[in-house]
């Protein structure tokens, strides 16, 4: 098990190395460079200024050489400065990372709990009106685009009803309490829950329906086990094996969903940071942001494998 995790970590490092090169290359291929952005915002620059700035940023060197310089510095944990913020990349990234982690973890906890609960209920009432209602809800969540749903929720709960704030992270000049900032999370979490919960509800339901048909469920009934014991101990524990695996894998795509909600609800997280860094050609920041997204996906893959082996005694990791 430990060997498996170690070897996967080494593999992940290799993937990150390759990805850093690919991302660096892609950013290098983008039309224009940071100096063009500077010139555009301040027409007072002369051609000599431009040449001096290019040399200062190292932009006059070929792409491969620039990448090599970055790699050498990065191996010493120096990831460079953000051009737009005039600060080290990590200093900018960490608060955004914390914000995103908070949102992702809360949304994940809410939608996975809800999806598993609804999926189990749907499977137990298969074919009835309860099942159909849950199905409809799930499909609605899957079908509505995230940005559109966010707008609807803002209109309904923030504009019309005024229950929750439309955007932001806390009330400016407000009490800075937990309750205050919690209010700002309700709508983004609700949006992500709808977007991600639907497919997992369907998935849990399908898995439960399959497991409930298994012979060992009948064995449990023949033992005299009551419905609670049958559902929770015998059925759910087996039905969750594939669900948990896919849930763990969803961490990666959840990052993509967060990018949209953070933009819609004006929250300063990783999604918004990466988005603005790419638009502003802030390549150091964009590179690190994208590498972070890559590692999130790699990590969730590793998590899925470990969860799988942990849940299913028939699987052993080597």
């Amino acid at each position, binding site marked *: 098990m430990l060997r498996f995790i170690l070897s996967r970590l080494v593999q992940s490092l290799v993937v990150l190395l390759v990805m850093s090169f690919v991302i660096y290359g892609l950013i290098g291929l983008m039309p224009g460079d940071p100096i063009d952005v500077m010139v555009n915002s301040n027409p007072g620059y002369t051609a000599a200024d431009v040449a001096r700035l290019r040399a200062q940023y190292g932009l006059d060197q070929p792409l491969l050489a620039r990448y090599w310089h970055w790699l050498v510095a990065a191996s010493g944990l120096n990831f460079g400065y953000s051009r737009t913020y005039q600060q080290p990349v990590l200093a900018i990234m960490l608060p955004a990372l914390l914000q995103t982690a908070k949102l992702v973890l809360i949304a994940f906890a809410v939608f996975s709990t809800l999806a598993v609960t609804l999926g189990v209920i749907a499977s137990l009432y298969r074919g009835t009106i309860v099942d159909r209602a849950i199905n409809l809800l799930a499909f609605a969540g899957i079908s509505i685009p995230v940005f559109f749903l966010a707008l609807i929720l803002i209109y309904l709960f923030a504009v019309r009803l005024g229950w929750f704030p439309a955007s932001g992270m806390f009330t400016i000049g407000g009490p800075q309490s937990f309750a205050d900032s919690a209010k700002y999370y309700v709508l983004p979490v609700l949006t992500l829950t709808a977007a991600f919960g639907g497919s997992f509800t369907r998935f849990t339901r399908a898995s439960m329906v399959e497991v409930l048909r298994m*012979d060992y469920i*009948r*064995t449990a009934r023949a033992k*005299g086990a009551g419905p609670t014991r049958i559902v929770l101990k015998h059925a759910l524990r087996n039905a969750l094996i594939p669900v948990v695996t896919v849930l763990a894998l969803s961490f990666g795509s959840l990052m993509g969903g967060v990018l949209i909600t953070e933009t819609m609800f004006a929250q300063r997280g990783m999604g918004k940071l990466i988005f603005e860094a790419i638009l502003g050609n802030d390549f150091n920041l964009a590179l690190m942001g994208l590498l972070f997204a890559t590692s999130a996906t790699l990590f969730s893959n590793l998590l899925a494998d470990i969860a799988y082996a942990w849940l*299913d005694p*028939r699987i052993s990791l080597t």
Partner: protein
Amino acid sequence: MTRPLVELEGLTVHFAMPRKSTLERGPGSVLQAVSDVSFSIAPGETLALVGESGCGKTTLARALVGLYPPARGAIRYKGTDLLAMSARERKHTRRAIQMIFQDPYESLNPRLPVSEVITEPLVIHGIGGRAERALRARELIHLVGLPQDALNRYPHQFSGGQRQRIAIARALGPAPELMVADEPLSALDVSIQSQILNLMGQLRDQHRLSLLFISHDLAVVHHLADRVAVMYLGRIVEIAPRAELYDTPSHPYSRALIDAIPRVGQGRRSRGRSIPGDLPSPLNPPAGCAFHPRCPKAQPVCRNEAPVLAPVATRPLQFAACHFKE
């Protein structure tokens, strides 16, 4: 005669079939899997239930252990009707009737270690404390001939025969008086079948168990059974002590089954005669005697009148449902 341990009276099990289309009106068709079955099992007795696939053997067994609700009839345990009991009493009584299933590959929960597979019925029926149950599990695993460390492993780490041993240990846990075994050998290799068969016979004798042994193989049944019941399309067509049934079968269907047993040393050509025709659909059973379309002795009366199970002339313990019993 001693008081029977378990007695079935007029047991009937229906399954409602789903309608073929939503346009179809009225009630859907009903499959009568078990019709009006009555028999009893004495303490320590082994009754074998034989019949072709689809004749309702498994449904009967599952109804007996409470997995299917019967449409009609009574299941009496030591004289009291299980179906009339309160849920609590019934749960207590169920402890005395345990079941072994056909397929040991599917009937054990893959996420439970063997120790939990075995102790769970004890937990459910509130037998013993934690330490006592652990002790009991060790005792049971020894009883079925598996090593102690089997308790810490998972079902997938065992072969089919070993798994069936685990299933037997599980069923023995709550000290049942009747063991219902639904074709416990059919998923196993032939070489393993005799081991499991011997184990079951041995445990039955040691623990004075009654056994309801379901099989489609009369040769296997011959080793184990005191009495044999033959089932056809949901009904018992003959029930008799083993010797009578094998030597002087009364119902033409029993005779045909016995003739179909392959015998050693008679060459390929007499591999046993097979019964002509297929098992009719239980959704639409033939009128009169259900066996008449395949019966060599069928007469017009068989088409119109269903025969009832009645003693055979000179043998009071042998019952057959046929207008022309031998």
